[in-house]
């Protein structure tokens, strides 16, 4: 029960029930947070990622030119082959379109997960619940697949294995989310703080280790590809996803926070209320 005698809203139950919103309201907030996150992730990717993509495409075209006897004609042919559908400038604008649509999609999924799981997240604080879900998704759906299948720039990857790589990537993503879920289940079996953390970490690592051993290893990086360019591209790609999920979590947390301090917030800080 709150320790304060001043209820934040007359007429509401005085227990610490989280402010409940309808699913439609939550979904709109999730989509909006996703759009904001997608736009910012797109700006990050445009600023820091495009130079790496350009450099990789230059290597790709040089390799294509070198593989045919008439190098000059091959470059022309490659340019003619790449150019017509979407120009490089178009692809750079499409980058922001892609991250925005992707942000909206994951924002909608985050809002749905929040609506379904809110009561199971053992915190009276709505914003903390939203941030926990976004953090869990960043760990399970981004970091776990990233470490097993780090993203590749253009000029890396055998087109004939794209189906296998796509399914392996999706499997790693799903197994990453299962690992986070297992960590929460394991942590809740313990009753002291350090034992919860240890149980959660152990369960996560067990599931991820088994998943990594089961999933096929894929390494299609040509020996001639510049290592530093590969590293920079991959770190930037991880940065794009990190920006996306961090902004999504923060924006959604801000949007689901009650407009005025809820009874729970007042109970958490009784000295301020008194």
């Amino acid at each position, binding site marked *: 029960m709150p320790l304060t005698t001043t209820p934040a809203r007359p007429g509401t139950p005085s227990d610490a029930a989280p402010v409940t919103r309808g699913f439609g309201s939550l979904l709109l907030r999730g989509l909006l947070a996703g759009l904001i996150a997608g736009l910012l992730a797109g700006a990050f990717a445009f600023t820091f990622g495009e130079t790496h993509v350009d450099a990789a495409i230059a290597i790709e075209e040089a390799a294509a030119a070198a593989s045919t006897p008439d190098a000059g004609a091959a470059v022309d042919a490659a340019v003619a082959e790449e150019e017509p559908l979407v120009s490089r400038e178009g692809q750079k604008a499409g980058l922001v379109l892609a991250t925005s649509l992707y942000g909206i999609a994951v924002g909608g999924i985050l809002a749905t997960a929040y609506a379904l799981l809110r009561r199971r997240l053992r915190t009276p604080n709505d914003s903390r619940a939203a941030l926990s879900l976004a953090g869990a998704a960043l760990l399970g759906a981004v970091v776990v697949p990233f470490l097993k299948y780090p*993203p590749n720039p253009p000029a890396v990857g055998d087109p004939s294995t794209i189906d296998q790589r796509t399914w392996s990537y999706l499997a790693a993503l799903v197994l990453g989310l299962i690992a986070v879920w297992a960590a929460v289940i394991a942590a809740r079996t313990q009753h002291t703080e350090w034992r919860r953390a240890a149980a959660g970490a152990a369960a996560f690592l067990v599931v991820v280790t088994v998943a990594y051993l089961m999933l096929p290893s894929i390494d299609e990086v040509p020996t001639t590809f510049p290592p530093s360019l590969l590293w920079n591209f991959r770190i930037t790609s991880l940065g794009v996803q990190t920006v996306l999920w961090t902004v999504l979590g923060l924006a959604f947390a801000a949007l689901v926070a009650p407009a005025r301090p809820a009874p729970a917030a007042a109970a958490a800080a009784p000295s301020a209320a008194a």
Partner: protein
Amino acid sequence: MSDVQSVQPTSTPVVSPQLIAAATGVVAVMLLLAYLVAFDQGALSQGGMYLHELMHDGRHLLGVPCH
């Protein structure tokens, strides 16, 4: 179990069938949208490879396997 949980109201995790149905539909639409960005090669968008090529850089930098 935890101190925090004892503060929670007793009428906890009943998720209504309507919410399940709505959530399923929303997730399906969202996954379709993510598929359009990440994997579609014209089957869904019916625009040939235009959208696929347009979002080429985004796919690479979001870390999705591309080609």
